């Protein structure tokens, strides 16, 4: 099953390899991972330096986290990481898998079990992440069915130029400009020499970091391989994060797995999956966090969105939450939290995104800032926009992943967001997708689904047909919402009512 042995995927690369600025055959680098420094940096080096274990600036321009806050957290977290690594080594050994030395990166992991799941939720050792993600997501199965395919696509698309490659080019240098592997100028700045500005000429472009070149190849190959998606902004962040932990070829296949199985159609040309998943999320918020729904489940005119209207008139907050899905929290949360969610995602599937989205909503709702601001609830559009602004900036301050993960999986009255099963999510998705399809058929049976909103409007002269705010009619009445969740939540809230409020 796992013919690709460790020797094929030797992980003995060093950072130095990354910065060899010579023009060695790029194909040679296709099967190698980029990051092996995670284990080499000591806690002290990180505490004294400007960058984290993954090459990101500790102090991001995007959040209010200071160097002091970071270090206070990391001092403690580094101890936690050591402890976790020991547990993982024990787990592997007890499953007859060899871990020869500190530096060994296993290519195989124990089969799925409650014990493994528990360990995964507490975090995979950073240097093992790429390997574990790939293993549990079914990467080997995918790869074994497509031996040599990635290399061939890369060769075929080498000089490709189209609309997708045009947008890809614009996004390459805009992917993780805070990361030393993506932005070479950070490195020279660190050495005390002036940093390069963004490449302007072709000459300079050729000298872009190896990571940027890898990212280009993966994104172009992906757009070519999945023409129904092509290139969608946010894929750059997904591919970029994968590339920090594994080879190009593996990154490519995990991106395929993510977009095929985990969040299908979310990046497709009409973003249909975004609308579906946001519909599901909104229904979940309504069921699970009714107090937040009472604030967000309205149009700007103050119209309360009843259940049968949610799917036809997604509330404006989905403009915020849709990026949580498209980027799978990259850029939404501090990187360590993103990685902890990704650990769980590749093992447990798409329910993970919904569970954490709900956790984030709840965390925002229960924050001091939000609670203090609540009394002035007048529900004007301005207030909603301020709330959106808060929901965009606040998650970036949640530096401790352990708190986030605990909040996600803790149970109150026997239920927590961890109680939402994949089966429920699948059913909800199917339900939402079906309803949307019905409405579409009804509203614009003559309209080709490939048309964009503008074309549809031109054809129908109807402003209300586009995907989010369309379907004014209440032809959804009598919708039978998923009884499973409803019943469960009824139980949950009746129990909760007798207890004190959630922490």
């Amino acid at each position, binding site marked *: 099953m796992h013919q690709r042995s460790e020797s094929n995927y030797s992980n003995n690369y060093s950072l130095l390899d990354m910065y060899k600025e010579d023009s060695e055959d790029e194909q040679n680098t296709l099967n190698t991972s980029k990051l092996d420094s995670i284990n080499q940096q000591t806690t002290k080096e990180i505490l004294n330096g400007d960058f984290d274990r993954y090459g990101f600036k500790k102090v991001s*321009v*995007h*959040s*209010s986290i200071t160097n002091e806050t970071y270090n206070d957290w990391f001092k403690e977290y580094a101890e936690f990481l050591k402890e976790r690594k020991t547990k993982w080594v024990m787990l592997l050994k007890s499953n007859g898998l060899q871990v020869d030395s500190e530096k060994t990166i296993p290519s195989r992991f124990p089969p799925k079990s409650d014990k493994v799941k528990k360990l995964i939720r507490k975090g995979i050792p950073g240097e093992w992440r790429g390997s574990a993600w790939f293993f549990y997501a079914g990467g080997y199965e995918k790869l074994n069915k497509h031996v040599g395919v990635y290399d061939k696509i890369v060769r075929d698309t080498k000089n490709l130029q189209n609309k997708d490659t045009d*947008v890809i080019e*614009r*996004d390459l*240098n*805009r*992917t*993780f*400009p805070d990361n030393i592997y993506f*932005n070479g100028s950070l490195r020279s700045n660190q050495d005390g020499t002036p940093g390069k500005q*963004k490449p302007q000429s072709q000459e300079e472009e050729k000298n872009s970091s190896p990571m940027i070149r890898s990212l280009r190849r993966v994104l172009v190959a992906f757009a070519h391989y999945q023409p129904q998606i092509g290139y*969608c*902004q*946010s894929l*750059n*962040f997904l591919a970029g994060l994968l590339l920090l932990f594994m080879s190009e070829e593996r990154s490519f296949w995990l991106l395929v797995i993510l977009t095929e199985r985990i969040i299908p159609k979310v990046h497709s*040309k*009409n*973003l249909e999956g975004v609308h579906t998943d946001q519909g599901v999320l909104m229904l979940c918020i309504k069921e699970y966090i009714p107090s937040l729904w009472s604030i967000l489940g309205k149009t*700007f005119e103050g119209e309360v969105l009843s259940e049968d209207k949610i799917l036809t008139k997604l509330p*404006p907050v989905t*403009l*915020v939450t*849709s*990026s949580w899905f*498209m*980027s799978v929290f990259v*850029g939404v949360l501090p990187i360590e939290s993103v990685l902890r969610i990704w650990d769980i995602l590749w093992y447990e599937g798409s329910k993970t995104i919904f569970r954490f989205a709900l956790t984030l909503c709840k965390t925002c709702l229960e924050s001091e*800032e*939000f609670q*203090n*601001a609540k009394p*002035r609830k*007048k529900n*004007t*559009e*301005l*207030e909603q*926009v*301020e*709330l*959106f*602004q*808060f929901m*965009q*900036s*606040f998650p*970036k*301050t949640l530096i401790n992943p352990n708190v986030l993960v605990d909040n996600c999986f803790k149970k109150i009255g026997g239920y927590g967001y961890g109680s939402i099963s994949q089966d429920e999510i699948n059913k909800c998705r199917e339900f939402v997708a079906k309803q949307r399809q019905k409405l579409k058929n009804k509203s614009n049976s003559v309209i080709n689904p490939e048309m*964009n*909103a*503008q074309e549809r409007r031109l054809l129908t002269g109807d*402003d209300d047909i*586009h*995907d*989010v*705010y369309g379907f004014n009619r209440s032809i959804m009445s009598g919708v039978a919402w998923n009884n499973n969740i409803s019943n469960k939540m009824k139980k949950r809230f009746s129990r909760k009512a007798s207890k004190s409020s959630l922490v």
Partner: protein
Amino acid sequence: MSFPNPAKAVKLVLLGEAAVGKSSLVLRFVSNDFQENKEPTIGAAFLTQKCTIGDKTIKYEIWDTAGQERFASLAPMYYRNAQAALVVYDITKPASFLKARHWVKELHEQASKDITIALVGNKYDLVEDENDGDTLRKVSVEEGQKLAEDEGLLFFETSAKTSYNVNEVFVGIGTKIPESSAPTGVQQAGNEAGRIDLTTGAASTTQQTSGCC
């Protein structure tokens, strides 16, 4: 912090092709900052910023949007009820000017009738130093001006990088915007005593007035 006059809330939406500098213009206006290679916006970003023009205080409620075409299906939600729009293009990219034309057309057809639109040609810093030949500039000032005149738009060439003309755009809009254009219920929203701003972190600049004027 108190304001002598009620702040008038103005919903302003940014539209334009990917990577023309929409988010950078907002970052310059709100935080007086610039970030090389700013990450693409996914979905939308929301910011608020107060701006004082004479004795008038405006609170801009800024909707910064994703530039890639497929996100356009969300656009009507963006410009619904918008009182102002910035249609941004990159003066070194002719295709982005073409896209700007489309946005202007769409706004005239679909947005509210009294919307104030500013056409903004960004990345002026790239052509500033060119003494002759104008090699990087691909959209002339005259082309921009003509479109603005034909369609009744404000027109600016800006550089979010050097901050050239950025505040002028927002002041210009604030000056031109009709007094009565704010929807009821929104107009007085900025004037509640002791109100707490939800803003945190890097975006907590809404109380600054210095970013403008």
